[in-house]
């Protein structure tokens, strides 16, 4: 058994952590388990793919890969645009569905609705793009040996770096900026937030935008390092929930730590029980956390 699983686990864990940040933010501020988050990841990947194909068709010469990576400027530009679009998609879901249910219903009705919306979203992807897996590019990546039997591709290293950058940015946002403090305030006590002059509706909108954008980033990285298919995000849902709950709902560092732990546990676990049962590992972790310490590692509230 080599140590390769460490590298694989870290890369997967980084992407899971990134998606889990969106889950933990919407969970703590909007107070419901959003089943659509996985599908925002898938939509982010497909939106990026579509936009990059459009750009590639319009500017054929711009598509060359940058340096050792498999992607070129079209995918980068498409990814940024898609982050905005996915954020808007999340906002649209809220406007059409969740906000209205929030006004009169209970949190459980919103979970049911999100479950249904999630199914509709990925079925729509299946319809538009067919269930067949696809890829951002056909460029082959040479894995770089790092020693101790570990090999990583440049794309994977880029994923780690980008995730670290995004996580750092999120941390700064939440601790140093007003909007970040406002988000933390709404997460703790929405009524008091109103009393101190915070526009809670605006904070909610911002939360959806950020959550959607981060989901898109995770989706693009997942599409680059693995593949793109309609179920890619949904298959990540249990690990996302496990990571967010393990880290403690509302904690961004917790979500990232949770993601890394889940990623590493999965890749270590498949060494013993085989790749087929990968999904069960996240579930077992989730069960353990909920039974032993539901507030998670850094959680402030159960």
């Amino acid at each position, binding site marked *: 058994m080599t140590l390769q699983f460490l590298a694989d686990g870290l890369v997967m864990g980084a992407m899971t952590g990134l998606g889990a940040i969106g889950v933990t933010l919407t969970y703590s501020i909007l107070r419901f388990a959003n089943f659509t988050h996985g599908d925002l990841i898938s939509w982010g990947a497909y939106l990026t793919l579509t936009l990059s194909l459009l750009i590639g068709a319009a500017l054929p010469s711009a598509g060359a890969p940058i340096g050792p990576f498999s992607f070129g400027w079209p995918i980068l530009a498409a990814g940024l645009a898609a982050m905005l679009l996915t954020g808007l998609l999340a906002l649209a879901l809220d406007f059409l569905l969740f906000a209205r249910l929030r006004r009169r219903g209970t949190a459980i009705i919103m979970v049911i609705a999100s479950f249904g919306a999630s199914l509709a979203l990925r079925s729509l992807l299946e319809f538009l793009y067919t269930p067949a897996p696809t890829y951002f590019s056909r460029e082959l990546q040479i894995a770089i040996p790092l020693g101790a039997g570990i090999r990583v591709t440049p794309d994977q290293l880029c994923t780690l770096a980008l995730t670290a950058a995004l996580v750092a940015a999120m941390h700064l946002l939440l601790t140093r900026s007003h909007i970040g*403090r406002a988000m933390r*305030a709404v997460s*703790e006590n929405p009524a*008091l937030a*109103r009393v101190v002059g*915070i*526009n809670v509706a605006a904070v909610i909108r911002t939360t959806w935008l950020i959550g959607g954008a981060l989901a898109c980033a995770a989706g693009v990285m997942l599409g680059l390092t693995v593949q793109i298919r309609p179920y890619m995000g949904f298959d990540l849902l249990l690990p996302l929930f496990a990571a967010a709950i393990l880290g403690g709902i509302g904690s961004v560092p917790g979500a990232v730590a949770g993601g890394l732990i889940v990623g590493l546990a999965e890749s270590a676990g498949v060494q013993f029980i085989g790749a087929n049962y990968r999904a069960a590992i996240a579930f077992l972790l989730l069960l353990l956390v909920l039974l032993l310490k539901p507030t998670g590692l850094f959680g402030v509230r159960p």
Partner: protein
Amino acid sequence: MSGSALLAVDNLVAGYEPGVPILRGAHLRVDAGEIVVILGPNGAGKSTLVKAVAGLVPIAAGSITLAGRDIAGVPAHEIVHRGLAFVPQTENVFTAMTIAENLQLSGHVLTKAARTRQIEAMYVLFPDLARQRQLAAGRLSGGQRQMLAIARALMIEPKLLMLDEPSAGLSPKLVGTVFAKLTDIRGSGVTILLVEQNARAALAVADRAYVLAEGQNRHEGPAAALGSDPLVARLYLGGMAAARGAP
């Protein structure tokens, strides 16, 4: 008469659930520079009244004007921007944030310079808070939390400061400190409206008082007169003993 008032509430009908009003035609008036207290038995609707003014309770009928502008139906956060600060009775600070962060949060409408200046002013007014500004608010004692809640409210230099039972859960000494602070705050030009269960302490600092019962006004007048009126005390304040603040 309400034209010159800072706050004017007329015929207010309000409640959390439609069709079940807690306030049934309440009214009050607060002039600039006053300390006005709302008294009354439990369930009278005192809290509901200030919460309705703050925009936290749906209003079915009636009017509320602040500095001449109508605020009934205006979203709560908007009302804050118009110069009204509210200190709820419970859960009035963000326990997961530090003292400094609680103050910074409130001051977001100000410019950075004004915010820094205001925070320093708050630390002067509440030296206890200045000593532990990086401490999470959840670790503060009851009295310190109350001070932080008031400091938080004062950050925006409000025209009107409303407090819901500021003495609740505090020792008699702390109650004295809080009310002394309120007098200081009024001295710096802030008008104060407070709801209180502890009639004696409140009437000692207030200018005027209203007595509410069952969602309607029952009595109003200068604080001194109300404090020594045995009929009022017996009917609404649990007797003279209670009115004097005895348990």
